């Protein structure tokens, strides 16, 4: 791709960016949120047209591509913002627009389900090919996206943050697959904000900042520090700084006993959360972490168990009730659960705090504007204005709005479900720092994440879930010290998670 430029209204998403990828290479595309990564990849996939510049595929030059042409030329892509049809089932999505036909020319749904099952099998994950996509968890949807891209057998495979909702186990499987494809001579473009992944898998890295090409070098030329410096345009400390002391006070604010969900029986969660404490929750995909968050926030009915809040047993019947009790939930699926995509940033942020925006039936727009501007600044949300529609923002910046909207409610207990998904390395540090600052103020945080490094960094204690049960709680001090082996805390944690508890 040569000298590609693209503007959205007043925003220069790309300025003369060139990118070249060779077959048999895994090429990492890096940059902070809103740098233009997704935009250039969408241009490559033909779903957006560049304002200027050319695209050269196997020596053939195009001014612009259409989705059909790009596909013919062997370009397959996983979009950052899930591009699945929610009303169709998994197999139908995997084979959308390339369905296998029976001899009579009709779609062979059975063959589709069989092949999908095979693909998932080869990936070593279990997703029901006949399940409707709308009923899947975010992680399963991401796996479906991956299967869809793989089924296309593309020569150039583009993956725009394929792992933001996946846990270490699935990431390992994906990496094995990518290495195999690379060995077969395919070109792979890989976008991720998880730095460890880049160093594990990539051969070459290209860095964008503010729509400009900063650098493109073999990965071996980079160190973690220099890569982060390139991405952020300044030195940023990595996650190790968070080895802070716990700010937990003695008072237990939330106590959960033997909680299980009505929608999936057999769960059993007990824990207590103290004021000023950050409780991390780890687990494999489908371990029931998000379910727990929803139960605590009144969004999923409880079959049995008790929730004791500030010493009183409560039955939380709705999110509204939960908000009134001083809880907040940053949900994991920003597009479905977090945002009204067609509404502006301000409109989204004021939604959970309408009550506080004046005591009259009218919305105090001035107050709301100030709150919004504050948050845009505090979270460094990259946008042209607070009036911009949420769906005109890059994925990471959308995620920041969701965090912001719940910070604005000033809760006592903040539940965060994969809050850093899609957020760049610099902002991730900001978010984690924010979490610690809130804890220091005496707020309590339940922090759910599939990225164990940040979990280990930010939490005071880490609970491990498996199959709907909370199987084990590990103190951070225990994780960091003790044991003579050289395993890093993160790797130890992963072992525990993988085993489903039992830290022997």
């Amino acid at each position, binding site marked *: 791709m040569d000298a590609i430029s693209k503007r959205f*209204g*007043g925003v220069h998403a790309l300025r003369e960016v060139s990118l070249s990828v060779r077959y048999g290479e895994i090429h990492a595309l890096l940059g902070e949120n809103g740098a233009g990564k997704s935009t250039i990849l969408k241009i490559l996939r033909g779903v957006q047209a560049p304002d200027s510049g050319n695209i050269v595929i196997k020596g053939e030059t195009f001014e612009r591509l259409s989705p059909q042409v790009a596909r013919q030329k062997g370009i397959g892509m996983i979009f950052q913002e899930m591009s699945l049809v929610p009303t169709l089932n998994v197999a139908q999505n995997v084979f959308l627009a390339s369905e296998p036909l029976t001899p009579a020319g009709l779609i062979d749904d059975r063959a589709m389900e069989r092949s999908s099952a095979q693909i998932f099998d080869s990936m070593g994950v279990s997703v029901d090919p006949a399940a409707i996509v709308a009923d899947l968890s975010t992680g399963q949807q991401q796996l479906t996206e991956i299967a869809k891209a793989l089924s296309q057998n593309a020569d150039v495979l583009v993956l725009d943050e394929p792992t933001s909702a996946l846990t270490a186990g699935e990431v390992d499987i994906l990496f094995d697959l990518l290495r195999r494809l690379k060995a077969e001579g395919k070109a792979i473009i890989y976008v991720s904000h998880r730095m460890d992944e880049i160093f594990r898998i990539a051969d070459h890295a290209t860095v964008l900042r503010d729509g400009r090409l900063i650098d493109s070098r073999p990965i071996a030329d980079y160190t973690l520090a220099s890569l982060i410096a390139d991405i952020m345009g300044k030195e940023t400390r990595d996650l190790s700084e968070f080895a802070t002391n716990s700010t937990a006070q003695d008072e237990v604010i939330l106590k959960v006993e033997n909680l299980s969900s009505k929608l999936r029986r057999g769960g059993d969660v007990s824990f207590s959360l103290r004021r000023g404490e950050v409780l991390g929750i780890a687990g494999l995909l489908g371990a029931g972490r998000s379910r727990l968050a929803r139960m605590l*926030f009144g*969004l999923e009915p409880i079959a049995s168990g008790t929730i004791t809040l500030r010493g009183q047993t409560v039955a939380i019947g*709705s*999110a*509204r009730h*939960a*908000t*009134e009790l001083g809880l907040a*939930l940053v*949900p994991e699926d920003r597009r*479905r*659960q*977090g*945002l*009204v*995509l*067609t*509404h502006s940033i301000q*409109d989204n942020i*004021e*939604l*959970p705090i*309408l*009550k506080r*925006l004046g005591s009259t*039936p*009218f*919305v105090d727009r001035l107050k709301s504007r100030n709150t919004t501007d504050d948050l845009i*600044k505090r979270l460094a949300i990259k*946008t*042209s*204005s*607070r*009036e*911009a529609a949420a769906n005109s923002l890059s994925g990471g910046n959308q995620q920041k709005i969701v965090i912001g*909207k719940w910070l604005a409610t000033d809760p006592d207990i903040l539940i965060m479900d994969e809050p850093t998904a899609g957020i760049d390395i610099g902002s991730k540090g900001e978010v984690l720092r924010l979490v610690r600052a809130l804890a220091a103020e005496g707020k309590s945080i339940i922090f759910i994440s599939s990225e164990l490094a940040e979990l280990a960094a930010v939490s005071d204690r880490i609970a491990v879930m498996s199959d709907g049960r909370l199987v084990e709680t590990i103190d951070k001090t225990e994780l960091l010290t003790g044991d003579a082996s050289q395993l890093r805390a993160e790797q130890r944690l992963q072992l525990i998670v993988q085993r489903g508890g039992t830290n022997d």
Partner: protein
Amino acid sequence: MIDTMAVARSETLLGYFKRTWRQNIIYIGFIVVFLFFAVTLHDKGFLTPNNILNIARQTAMIAVMAVAMTLVLSSGEIDLSVGAVAGLASVTTAMAVAWGGVPAGIAAGVMTGVAVGLINGFLSTRLMIPTFLTTLAMMGIAKGTAMWISDTAAIPVLDPTYPAIFGGGNIGPIPTLLVWMLVVGVIGHIVLRRTKFGRQILAVGGNVVAARYSGINTGRIKLWVIVISAVTASLAGMLYAGRLQTGRFQLGEGDELSVIAAVVLGGTSLFGGKGTVVGSIIGALMIGVINNGLILMGLEYSQQLIARGGIIILAVALSQAGTRTA
């Protein structure tokens, strides 16, 4: 920091113009249609104050219902029962006026709306029946009830106070109907744009899951919107009763389509999350102007139908073309 904020400011202004231009598209269509008739029909009395007031009077009921329908569509629902409910309310009001005078009439009309609204709302938000089906069923029920209690006859409204308040008279030179339309329009606009309730309506319509996750009682919001729609439809029925000094089951028949057309023409999305009350009223006026102009042109009914369809498409296409170049 200061630098980016400055950029943000200036872009806001530009963005503002673009957004308003897009939202104001129906106004352009309206003005074009109006000018067209003003020029071609200047010798046929189109521009006489009386004719202009006639258009307002003829449009008032549709416009009033369109205001509430804007809320309904914005919340992602639909109300097909408005026309039939207006007819039913005209009958109940007329019967109550005959029985107990104007206060009884007003009470009967409003109660009709509340009752219908609660039934529609209960079925839709508790039993989760799509509003398309509940209100379609209600359309038949309301019409049947109106026919039944009135024995399909017209119920005359003899008390002269009633039409003076609802739709018959003038306040100074201004028809009461116009006053009703403006009052309902202003209230509707403020509710949707300025109040917390309005924000919640738009959020529920834009993404009901996200709204629920944000602590909004989505069922209650929808219930309220459905009740408001039914009450407003009843008000329209009361205005019909005042204007025609009669209650009859056929009043308002088929209005649901005109109302929804006015709202969609005004720029509100059928799929929720986006709505403009002012646009809806302009949409209603536009349909009124077209109907009026085509009759004045002396076209046959069949030609009127064709021309109306053509003009609506032209007006929208013109405006859309505007959007794309913008």
